[in-house]
């Protein structure tokens, strides 16, 4: 049969269109959506934030207390890799000169200079990590939490380069053998090759509970609540005392306040 190349291509294109039409119609026609309701007992907010009053921790807490770290890392099955190179930490402690670099004058009272401050993800409003993530594996939720989707993360670590607070950790190796705390069977572990950080205990918030670290602190040094609700714990804590945020000049609008 005499047929030119152009005719062949035209017929081939029409066939492909015809064969694909049914599938496309199917895809557009599908309207079944899983039905869901919101959890009625969950805590909601417009902007979750935290205020940390280290004075309460230093004055009332036992020396070397790390209850908040233990609670967080146990609740979320955070491993203890054992090397500083690959350590994974969602909440940890550091000295004033590291928490507020560039702020220290050397004239601060000794307690402030030497005693530990707690650090965690600041859940910034203008989070640079969210801006740079190429797959939206880290994203801002409507309630202000900077959330991690471990299923989508490709492990490029751009978010780690973008975070001005050093809040993110990467799983260089399989974390499971290194979970030294008692395994929490209601929360998954992570897999090798993804980045993780504090998630403001969003799975607890949805069940009506406050974050593990806040609950664990016996001195009530950690206040948590809705920054846009004038009656919340965090607003009341901030209203009466001076507070600082880390690196405010970067415009990230962090949600963790330090009461000095």
């Amino acid at each position, binding site marked *: 049969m005499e047929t030119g190349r152009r005719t062949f291509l035209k017929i081939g294109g029409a066939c492909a269109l015809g064969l694909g039409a049914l599938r496309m119609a199917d895809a557009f026609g599908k309207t079944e959506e899983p039905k869901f309701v919101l959890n009625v007992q969950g805590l909601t907010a417009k902007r979750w934030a935290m205020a940390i009053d280290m004075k309460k921790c230093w004055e009332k807490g036992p020396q070397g207390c790390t209850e908040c770290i233990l609670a967080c890392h146990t609740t979320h099955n955070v491993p203890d890799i054992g090397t500083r190179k690959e350590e994974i930490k969602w909440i940890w402690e550091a000295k004033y000169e590291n928490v507020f670099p560039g702020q220290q004058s050397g004239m601060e009272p000794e307690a402030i200079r030497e005693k530990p401050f707690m650090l965690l993800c600041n859940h910034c409003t203008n989070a640079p990590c969210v801006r740079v993530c190429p797959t939206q594996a880290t994203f801002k939720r409507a309630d202000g939490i900077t959330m991690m989707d471990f299923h989508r993360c490709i492990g490029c670590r751009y978010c780690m380069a973008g975070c001005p607070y050093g809040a993110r950790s990467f799983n260089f190796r*399989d974390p499971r053998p290194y979970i030294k705390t008692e395994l929490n*069977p209601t929360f998954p572990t992570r897999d090798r090759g993804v980045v993780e950080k504090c998630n403001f205990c969003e799975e607890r918030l949805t069940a009506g509970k406050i974050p593990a670290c806040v609950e664990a602190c016996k001195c009530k040094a950690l206040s948590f609540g809705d920054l846009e609700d004038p009656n919340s714990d965090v607003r009341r804590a901030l209203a009466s005392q001076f507070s600082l945020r880390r690196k405010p000049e970067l415009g990230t609008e962090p949600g963790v306040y330090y009461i000095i």
Partner: protein
Amino acid sequence: MKIYDGKYIFIGLIIFVALATFPVWFTHGRAAPAPEPKIDTPVIAKMLNKQCVLPKDEMITEHMKLLNDWRTLVVRDGKRMYVASDGKTYEMSLQNECMKCHSNKSQFCDQCHNYAGLQKDADPYCWNCHIAPKEPENKQQGEWRENGSVPAHHFSLFSGFGKESR
């Protein structure tokens, strides 16, 4: 008729046929038994109306899609409660809801997954992160079946992720 390089051609052909039919002759006589997922867990035994989130046939074909949809809803949209067609609400969680009833992963999920040759560390790799419920020691069969057959995934060339650390 002269076949040039006949020696090499025939040797190559024999090697190719052997390799191409490898799955047939290597596992000859070792047909794995049909999978029998068991639902005799304590929680299911107590249930009067043994009903899952979806009807059984739908679950068999749709459970992966359901889990994917749940994953998006929970992680990305923050929605956790699912309303089934019979009005019952479930928490959308593999670890905390599905496995509450089906706490015998090795006798349930693994039965079909192993039979289908889905490698433990590749597809589905949910369990790399999501913690499988602990099963009593004697019930756990492990990988070797009673008739001595071995699931196909043991013959993978690349052992996949995390084998070293397990």
